[in-house]
């Protein structure tokens, strides 16, 4: 008898849960239904795909999605990018908005979990009907969101340097692809530091792909591979790897470690008595923000390759850095992905204004060849692959946590995600997926 009663209440609970869900869903669709008023620019309401993310603007603003990890292991990097994107939105709104409307950010937490990124992207596009989304950090989160944006014909601005081999018609890549960061860095190292490379990375797709490219490049240009090592994400003891590096005696350690592992690696490298004058390291995932976590004294002298440093001396950058510090605190720093996220918002704004609409297809069309004076210098959207023309830079960490630029490419480098213009890279990409 007891059991049966128990069961009955369980059923009630389940019913209540379903109702809750249903209510939640209904509520949302009601909200969306109530505010479908066409945006100022998009004269044709919803082209072919009525339900699929047809960009909309509510009466008083244009909704955009911000989708980064605010919890979990990736929050250490992504929260700052979100901050920069929100700052850009605030600035634009203060200056009158886009198409005379305010931008309304809808912030979601990707929770460092790739399926959650996909879920939230879908929610932003279908429930909130945002005009565009700024978000992602890891390649995995981008890969997870990509099918959603392609299916619903949404628009994603991805702000982080990555391993290339991709050009989705629904994504704008405002970070560097390999030929704007890794390839020039390797060339510079071969010329200035030595031929013998030791490749060290975290075990995920970016380091593995980057190293595959580097190996091909070394082979073509007379470099030598001293070793290749991957550590699990979150690896924190590098004593054995440092021993291996010491035994291999490379000229250069090319470091594609991610996040927390960098802190452990550089601290332990210094403790083992290996300083930057004894061994050159080149990192591609260590920026000003990471430098704070590592400790500026520890990192000093080590090299990094980026497209932006906080130390860049230009009026645009000064304005950006000052605004960021004023908004979030004097102790905060800017870095490449933060700048790329900030730039992305402005690029989208420029494209929308040029198109006179937030319609995805129109914005994409308008974005072709669009130029913008970003903090890193003039950037231009490549109409073909939707990446940015960027200046490649190499910097040296200073004891104050900033990077001193040692070299730059002068002109902005044309993005080439599949490395099609590099002979030695033939056969790497295996065709475009």
């Amino acid at each position: 008898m007891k059991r049966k009663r128990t069961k009955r209440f369980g059923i009630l609970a389940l019913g209540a849960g379903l109702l809750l869900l249903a209510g939640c869903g209904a509520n949302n669709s009601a909200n969306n239904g109530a505010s479908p008023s066409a945006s100022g620019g998009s004269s044709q309401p919803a082209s072919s795909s009525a339900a699929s993310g047809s960009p909309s603007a509510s009466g008083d603003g244009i909704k955009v999605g911000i989708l980064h990890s605010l919890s979990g292991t990736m929050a250490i990097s992504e929260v700052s990018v979100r901050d920069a994107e929100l700052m850009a939105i605030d600035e634009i709104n203060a200056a009158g908005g886009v198409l005379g409307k305010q931008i309304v950010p809808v912030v979601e937490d990707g929770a460092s979990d790739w399926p959650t990124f996909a879920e939230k992207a879908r929610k932003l596009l279908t429930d909130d009907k945002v005009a565009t989304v700024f978000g992602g950090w890891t390649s995995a989160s981008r890969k997870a969101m990509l099918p959603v944006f392609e299916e619903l014909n949404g628009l994603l601005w991805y702000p982080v340097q990555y391993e290339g081999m991709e050009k989705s018609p629904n994504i704008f890549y405002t970070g560097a692809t390999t030929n704007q960061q890794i390839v020039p860095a390797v060339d510079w190292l071969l010329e200035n530091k030595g031929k013998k490379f030791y490749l060290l990375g975290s075990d995920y797709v970016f380091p593995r792909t980057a190293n595959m490219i580097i190996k091909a490049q070394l082979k073509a240009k007379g470099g030598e591979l001293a070793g290749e090592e991957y550590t699990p994400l979150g690896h924190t003891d590098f004593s054995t790897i440092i021993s291996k590096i010491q035994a291999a005696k490379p000229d250069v350690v090319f470091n594609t470690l991610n996040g927390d592992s960098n802190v452990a690696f550089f601290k332990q490298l210094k403790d083992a008595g290996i300083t930057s004058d004894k061994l050159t390291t080149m990192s591609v995932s260590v920026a000003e923000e990471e430098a704070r976590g590592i400790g500026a004294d520890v990192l000093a002298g080590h090299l990094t390759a980026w497209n932006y440093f906080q130390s860049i001396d230009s009026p645009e950058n000064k304005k950006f850095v000052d605004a960021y510090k004023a908004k979030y605190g004097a102790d905060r720093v800017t870095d490449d992905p933060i700048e790329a996220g900030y730039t992305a918002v402005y690029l989208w704004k420029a494209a929308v204004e040029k198109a006179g609409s937030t319609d995805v297809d129109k914005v994409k069309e308008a974005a072709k060849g669009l130029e913008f004076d970003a903090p890193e210098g003039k950037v231009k959207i490549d109409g073909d692959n939707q990446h940015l023309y960027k200046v490649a830079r190499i910097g040296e960490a200073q004891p104050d946590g900033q990077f001193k630029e040692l070299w730059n490419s002068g002109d902005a480098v044309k993005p080439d995600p599949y490395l099609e213009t590099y002979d030695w890279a033939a056969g790497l990409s295996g065709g475009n997926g």
Partner: protein
Amino acid sequence: MSVWLVQMFNSLSVSSILLLIALGLAITFGLMNVINMAHGELIMIGAYTAYVMQNLFADYLPASWFGAYFAVAIPAAFCVSFLVGLALEAGLIRFLYGRPLDSLLATWGVGMVLQQLARTIFGAPNVGVKSPEWLNGGLSLGGSVLPYKRLFIIGLVIVTLIAMYLYIYRSAAGRRMRAVMQNRQMAACLGISTRRVDAMTFAIGSGIAGVAGCALSLIGPIGPSLGTYYIVDAFMVVVLGGVGKLLGTVAGALGMGVFNTYFEFWTNASLGKVLVFACIVAFLQWKPQGLVAMRTRSLD
């Protein structure tokens, strides 16, 4: 030749770190049978205490004193984690004695909250700790360098271990603690306040986690998700060693550290980790009680 020496030192160092993170757990899990998944977050609290101490010293004391911050940070980390542990025990753990698996789930929720709390207070990015000058550099030994920090951690583990031994086996408080852990009813009958002993024991285990976090700030990252990197390793050490035995925990840490270092040396970091864990799983099949078994004749 020298590589082998260095590797021997490295395995000792890795073992000492594993032992340091596992010692607190050896108490809360080994003696009290509480599966504290927030142990990693207590380590994190210790690391952030080091960070706060550093900032206090840098801001309020003359620069010449800066090097001393770390010496203050260790007891401070112990105290902070101790207090957090005390609060945790009073508000939560005491309802969970005898329900080890429930304690696992509840403390996992605690870990979640503490992580987000750290993110709210200190910001999401990692923070940096400048290590004191007297711990920089290392002991040169035949062409290789034994970092002072790693030597310091080995020393710290030994000191902690001795302190724990003296407390548990040589002090009146430790005697009460063992009495309660072995036979709660009997101890209560003898007039021991089991509530107080429970609270103290859990808090001490937490405090040691704080010390571990403080030491780890020397060689690793300091961020909100710091604890997640260590928690499973810590449990493995305790289980491998044999629950309820301090000596077992030492043996477990040594075994795991040595195998991990050499496997990693021969293969790579990922495979090394897989091999170590596979060995532990296989070993526990063979000896479910761990390296140092505690014998009982009871049915369950």
